[in-house]
């Protein structure tokens, strides 16, 4: 039987660090993350950013597939309601997020694995603070082994 080559799930020397995938909307959150970087604001390096045009582009499949692929946490960030570059993309997304969060909790996925936030292009500091918060939450939950396909 082939064995999976596991990267950093458990190592003796280093403490386990969660891997979080972050979907950021291009106009607000991605720019906010950029501003945090340019301003040299430190935030945890656990997130891997995927740029999408709007938080309304986020399909529930992205979030669930990330969990089944083994990501420990998912973070989605968009513009504040009322400030969406496409007028109402984030409002559509907000309803989707609400349903998804409630259903995930009902099915027994720890609330805290999937997080949503609003961050605008001028809020570099806020972006860093919330990413730090999300990383703390996911770190407390431990590695994501529920969806592991064992073979």
């Amino acid at each position, binding site marked *: 039987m082939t064995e999976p*080559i596991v990267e950093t799930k458990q190592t003796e020397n280093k403490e386990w660090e969660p891997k979080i995938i972050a979907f950021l909307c291009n106009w607000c959150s991605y720019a906010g993350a950029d501003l945090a970087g340019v301003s040299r604001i430190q935030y945890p390096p656990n997130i891997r950013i995927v740029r999408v045009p709007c938080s309304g582009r986020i399909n529930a499949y992205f979030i669930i597939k990330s969990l089944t692929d083994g990501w420990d946490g998912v973070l989605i960030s968009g513009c504040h309601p009322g400030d969406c570059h496409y007028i109402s993309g984030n409002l559509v997304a907000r309803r989707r997020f609400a349903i998804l969060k409630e259903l995930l909790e009902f099915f027994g996925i720890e609330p805290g694995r999937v997080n949503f936030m609003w961050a605008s292009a001028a809020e570099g500091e806020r972006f860093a603070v919330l990413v730090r918060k999300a990383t703390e939450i996911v770190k407390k939950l431990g590695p994501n082994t529920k969806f592991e396909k064992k073979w």
Partner: protein
Amino acid sequence: MAEKLLKKDDIGKFYSELEKEYKFYAPTKVKGNIAFKKISNAEEIELDYLNSKVPPKDVLFPQKETIFEYRYEGKEVIIEERKDLEDKLIIFGVRPCDAYSFKLLEDFFASGDFQDDIFLKKRENATIIGIGCNSPRQSCFCTSVGGHPFQKESTDVFLSDLGDTYLVEAISEKGENLLKKLSWLADAKKADVEKSKELAKLAEESFTTKFDFDLVTKVLDENFEHPVWQEISESCIGCSSCTFLCPTCTCFDVIDENDEYNNRGRRIRIWDTCQSCLYTLETSGHNPRPAKIQRCRNRIMHKFSYYPSNYDCLGCVGCGRCITACPVNNELRLIIDKILEIQEKSGEKVSA
């Protein structure tokens, strides 16, 4: 070889001796339904059952099966074949209809230029221990398709439930070899063998459904475009319960699963169904069976017309699972009635 007796109390001993050498599959309760699973102790065996929801073909041809696994090492791809095909299995307590289905599955997987090694190797290493049906269900009709509630031919060892003992008969060489290992089994008396024959006769007489399937095949061969198919497929919702629970259905889909993060993958096969609208969808976008009536018709024709043409026997074992599973009660017996009505209405006698 002479018939033997197995006391119901000795099933535990039977199991613990055989499980040393064989992987033991038996009917057991899973979430309230009977299923054939590998058991870990003899208490789990339930032999006093009507029939399992999912047929025992699940043991040799499971819903999901790995064909091979592969992994990347640098630029090389290393393929690992299945290693567990040489394991010996016992499938215990199979009804005669399901035991006969193994023969039909063998016909299918061994036909043509490419033989399915995975199934055939497992089948070769499997010993089937059948058990007779003392009280067949209303929905059973094995006698109409050439079967019998006490049919022994497709099994290796056959049990008959005589009350507090089972009559044990070796049918094939494999069965004889198995029974030789259990020398502690008592010899059966003539009265026991007579009782088993009695039970067989009673069971045969209790059937309420009787069809002449040779006639059905003839009518089907000549009525592919008949408007009766409209009526037959009217209430079908395409749920595919019938095909998933059928002991002779063999269609499967092959999928490659990639675990990119770990540089490995596997090729698996999963059960597929001709009742799905995507089943015949081709890459060009053309679909030869886009409508439900064509898919409904295909299932009936496959079992009762194409199977006789290709393999010289009916593709149905008469277990009745499709009848009890159909949520809209679009049952096989009503369908056969409607088909036979064509021949009556047309007035001309179809010669047998």
